[in-house]
């Protein structure tokens, strides 16, 4: 319907390519890689909250399901990483469907509680089903990542893979944003009552969105597991869901660039604050509070205001 924002996509692409050639230090590459993982998750969260109005505090659980399912399936059945990740993504989507079926009838705080509860249950399962997951000590038996016969190992080659994945998802998010679907979701978010009376099957739409974002998050989680080479439940607890929430909000809800900018800033920020250690938490909180209080549209809104043009549409 609306025109795709090609300058934005090209800008992202240039940054990604520039980063590849300019950043030689693996430390910075690893931060960018983490930033991209976070960005995809935060964008999924953004689609849920910023577009559809579903507050999901269980996103970390889907991320974890993806990571654990991919590596355990690969380890126990000897499947290649990529098919395992796809299976994990499908499995997570199925889980989201089953969970979403009863939960998405709830609203607001009740929905927040339900998704939070789901996240907690998955967290307990990750800890307790030690015969599959390795329990709290973590899962170490992760094979080397191979894709199309090329083995991907180390920050440099993973950067290329994750950057491609990230760019594909960004393009998809942008296309989604400009399609009628994003309107449909915004209608649901703004007025369920009006959307219902104009023939939108709210529940079905929400369920589909919830399922697909869970699938993407899990796919991302699977790749993350192979990148990190070790996973343990602490990476997928409630705190991570909250981190995603803050990223999406700091970046700007309801925009494609919101999740990306929020993830980039909040992934990079703690690295610069490493020297002030004790005060890092306070500063992080203040940064968040200041963004919410003074920047209604998040950082995307700020950029829009400064440049006077639309960064995302």
């Amino acid at each position: 319907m609306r025109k795709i924002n090609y300058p934005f996509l090209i800008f992202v692409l240039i940054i990604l390519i520039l980063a590849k050639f300019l950043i030689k230090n693996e430390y910075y590459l690893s931060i960018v890689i983490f930033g991209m993982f976070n960005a995809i998750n935060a964008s999924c969260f953004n689609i849920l909250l910023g577009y559809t109005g579903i507050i999901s505090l269980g996103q970390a659980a889907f991320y974890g399901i993806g990571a654990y399912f991919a590596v355990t399936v690969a380890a126990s059945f000897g499947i290649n990483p990529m098919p395992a990740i796809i299976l994990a993504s499908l499995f997570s989507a199925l889980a989201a469907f089953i969970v979403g079926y009863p939960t998405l009838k709830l609203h607001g705080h009740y929905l927040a509680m339900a998704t939070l509860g789901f996240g907690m249950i998955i967290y307990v399962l990750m800890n307790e089903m030690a015969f599959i997951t390795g329990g709290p000590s973590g899962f170490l038996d992760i094979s080397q990542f191979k894709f199309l016969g090329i083995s991907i190992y180390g920050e440099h080659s993973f950067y290329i893979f994750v950057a491609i994945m990230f760019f594909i998802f960004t393009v998809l998010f942008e296309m989604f944003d400009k399609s009628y679907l994003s309107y449909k979701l915004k209608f649901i978010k703004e007025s369920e009552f009006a959307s219902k009376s104009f023939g939108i099957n709210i529940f079905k739409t929400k369920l589909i969105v919830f399922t697909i974002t869970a699938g993407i998050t899990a796919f991302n989680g699977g790749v993350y597991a192979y990148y990190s080479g070790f996973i343990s439940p602490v990476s997928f607890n409630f705190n991570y869901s909250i981190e995603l929430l803050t990223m999406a909000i700091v970046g700007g809800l309801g925009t494609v660039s919101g999740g990306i900018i929020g993830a980039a800033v909040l992934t990079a920020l703690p690295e610069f604050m490493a020297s002030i250690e004790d005060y890092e938490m306070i500063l992080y909180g203040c940064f968040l509070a200041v963004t919410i209080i003074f920047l209604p549209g998040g950082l995307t809104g700020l950029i829009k205001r400064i440049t006077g043009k639309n960064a995302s549409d």
Partner: protein
Amino acid sequence: MLQIKNVGINFGGVKALDNVSFDVPCGCITALIGPNGAGKTTLFNIITGFLKNKTGKIFFENENITNAQPYHVFAKGISRTFQNLNLISELSLKENLLLGIIGKDNPSAVKSILRLNSKYWHRVEKKIDYCMEITGISEWRDRKTDEMPYGILKYLEMARAIINEPKILLLDEPAAGLNNVEKENLMGLLSFLINKNITIFMVEHDMNFVSNLADNVICLNYGKVIANGSYADIRNNEEVIKAYLGDPDA
């Protein structure tokens, strides 16, 4: 066209609607009147599937739509407006109209994301233009709704309700809050719609408006139908007068 049969609903012991039955005939304007709290909007909500009635049945074109989901009701060709508008303030007028149509057509999401259905979108754009024109709001098409005056929004809501070419239009107080000029225009628009063979069923308080337009008037009080007939009949009906002015004997 729309048949209400013995519909009843309770809200915590209060009978909001009690054994309500009437028909909305095809191709004309039917008005539902009654004092505040008579159950008019409740009835609308039952018809459109937002409330589940305890008793009775609703038929649309001889098809039972009792307790159907709102989107099913809408798909049958029943479109409505609201007392409190229910527009989406963050979006432009044009985008608000989109809501009226995508729920009906349900275009493929995948095709839409991959941008494979551009022909369809051309048709949609044309429809939007057309509806904006007949409601007279074309010049503000790209403005955001929250910066528009109430009258324009009222028309926008009308446009949103007719863009999907409904068979019947349920209007909840269409004239409320409009000035006289706007009311005149609205009457013109409704007559135009009747000519387009769209049945209109409206809740309205403005008796002048009702008298000018309605072919058929139904009066509700305390959840009961107390009168049903032409405007002239209703005006002289004692019970209606009592309901509006209060019972002098009481």
